[in-house]
């Protein structure tokens, strides 16, 4: 391998690593706040990419009826809860926000000339019909069992994963999807050729990460999520409800996942079930960060990207094996370095 090949592989590794980094941050966030190991994270990548491909080709967002259906289900569940508390005044808002709004969005999108819309608008529409699935899934699948053990939450998570993969096949078909690059072409930098799309991916991923950091450092909602992760009881006593925190971080996770999908759709063909592997690699990054440290998770994810890229050159048949084997020394090291913390401990 000469230097230019090494650079090319590094470029590839960092590009994928940036995506894994985004996903690993979302995974750490969801676990820290809700104790859910969010297996379906990757499905949001696939949904984002394939919705974008569909809209780009002039089709309606394939997941729109799922958003409406789940919205109606959330409205029913929320209404029953409100009635039980005797809070009838909240009913109109519950029905409007959860059920009427998605239906209005579906009607609106039918009258839009999707194919000829500007690229950023297409992105916005794709996100609008994928991201709401995050809080909807939290409300329906996780909120009713929010106090359960980590293991039970993991089992629910696996179930949601299989459901979303199955629905993905139904919505998007078995064909893969690909979108045009944000900007075509590239430029020569020394001995290597850099695609513009690579810069877009790394740049937007960095921006998103910076945005998340700002959100957690500066906004009261971001601080509330951190507080929930640090001390659940304390947060509850300050009026930060677990339901709100869960909904918020599932929204962020869905947004990060869907956006990642839109970013990589121009460089890889995404199938309805591709997301799982991508999500798992983000998960390896998150594990390197001990499911707790954001910077370590991001760094671990970049490492995963590089390792994958170089091993695909040297031993392409074993590339996944090599990447996932990384988790074994990491787990060994973590179990030796830290004393055991009971995962059912309240704090």
């Amino acid at each position, binding site marked *: 391998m000469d230097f230019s090949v090494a650079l090319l592989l590094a470029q590839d590794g960092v590009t994928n690593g940036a995506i894994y980094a985004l996903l690993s941050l979302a995974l750490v966030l969801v676990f820290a706040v809700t104790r859910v190991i969010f297996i379906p994270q990757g499905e949001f990548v696939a949904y984002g990419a394939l919705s974008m491909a569909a809209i780009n080709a002039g089709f309606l967002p394939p997941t729109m009826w799922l958003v409406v259906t789940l919205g109606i289900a959330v409205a029913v569940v929320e209404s029953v809860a409100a009635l039980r508390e005797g809070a009838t005044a909240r009913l109109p808002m519950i029905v409007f926000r959860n059920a009427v709004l998605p239906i209005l969005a579906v009607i609106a999108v039918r009258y839009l000339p999707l194919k000829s819309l500007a690229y950023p608008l297409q992105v916005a529409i794709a996100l609008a019909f994928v991201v709401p699935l995050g809080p909807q899934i939290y409300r329906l699948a996780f909120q009713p069992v929010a106090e359960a053990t980590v293991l039970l939450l993991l089992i629910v998570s696996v179930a949601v994963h299989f459901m979303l993969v199955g629905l993905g096949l139904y919505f998007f078909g078995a064909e893969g999807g690909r979108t045009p690059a944000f900007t075509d072409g590239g430029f020569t930098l020394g001995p290597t050729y850099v695609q513009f799309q690579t810069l877009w991916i790394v740049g937007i991923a960095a921006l998103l990460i910076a945005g998340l950091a700002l959100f957690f450092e500066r906004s009261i909602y971001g601080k509330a999520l951190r507080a929930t992760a640090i001390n659940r009881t304390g947060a509850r006593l300050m*009026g930060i409800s677990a339901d709100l925190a869960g909904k918020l971080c599932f929204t962020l996770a869905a947004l990060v996942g869907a956006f990642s999908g839109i970013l990589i759709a121009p460089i890889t063909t995404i199938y309805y079930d591709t997301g799982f592997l991508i999500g798992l690699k983000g998960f390896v990054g998150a594990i390197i960060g001990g499911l707790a440290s954001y910077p370590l998770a991001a760094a671990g994810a970049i490492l995963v990207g590089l390792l994958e890229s170089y091993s695909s050159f040297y031993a392409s048949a074993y590339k996944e094996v090599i990447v996932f084997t990384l988790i074994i020394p990491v787990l060994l090291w973590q179990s030796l370095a830290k004393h055991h913390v009971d995962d059912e401990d309240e704090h």
Partner: protein
Amino acid sequence: MKPTLLETQDLCVNYGRVEAIHKVSIRIREGDIVTVIGPNGAGKTTLLSALMGLLPARGEVAYQGQPTLGKVSVDGLVGKGLVLVPEKRELFGSMSVADNLLLGAFARHRRGARDHARTMEEVFAIFPRLAERRAQEAGTLSGGERQMLAMGRALMAKPTLLMLDEPSLGLAPLIVKEIFRIVVQLKDMGVSVLLVEQNARAALQVADYGYVLENGSVALESDARTLLNDPRVIESYLGLGGSHSIAA
């Protein structure tokens, strides 16, 4: 007579098959300091948890005239000014003092309030020590400072009724004195206080009314002054010199 702020009727809480508190009926009037004293394990913390909606309970609880039991969520109660400072303080250890305080205003923020900077200055006026430590991580504070931060954080919610669970627990006598002085100061500012204490003498000295909780039931209730002079209370809770509980 001052209007009632919070009232319970026959409140019962079970842990599994064990009844932790049994038919407890208490009343807190607006502007009063009411204390609940009693030995370890009498159900004092359980009572506060049930009032806050943290535990499933039977019976009736009315706050500001509205029934709350099973009807109003914890964040709903915080939004209505019912705020608990728990025995374990439950601070956000790796966040700064200022961020801990800010999060105390979360329930008000959700309801549209944006005057957090001014509220924080008011809290700093009561706890000047917190102002000095505002950039420090909460986990690095001393025991007394941690209690001050827990109380300050609760005050950021602008409570109508502040419930304090063993605020003097594990603190040096001088700090205990300071904490009780602040409890009186809060009363003067118009905050009603429900004070749960093992330090019976100090609690009764600042309180208007008191309940003695034993084995999960109210054994005795009266004006705080009457309780201070009640022979049964003196024998069980105030001791001869009355200092053992202050050292506790």
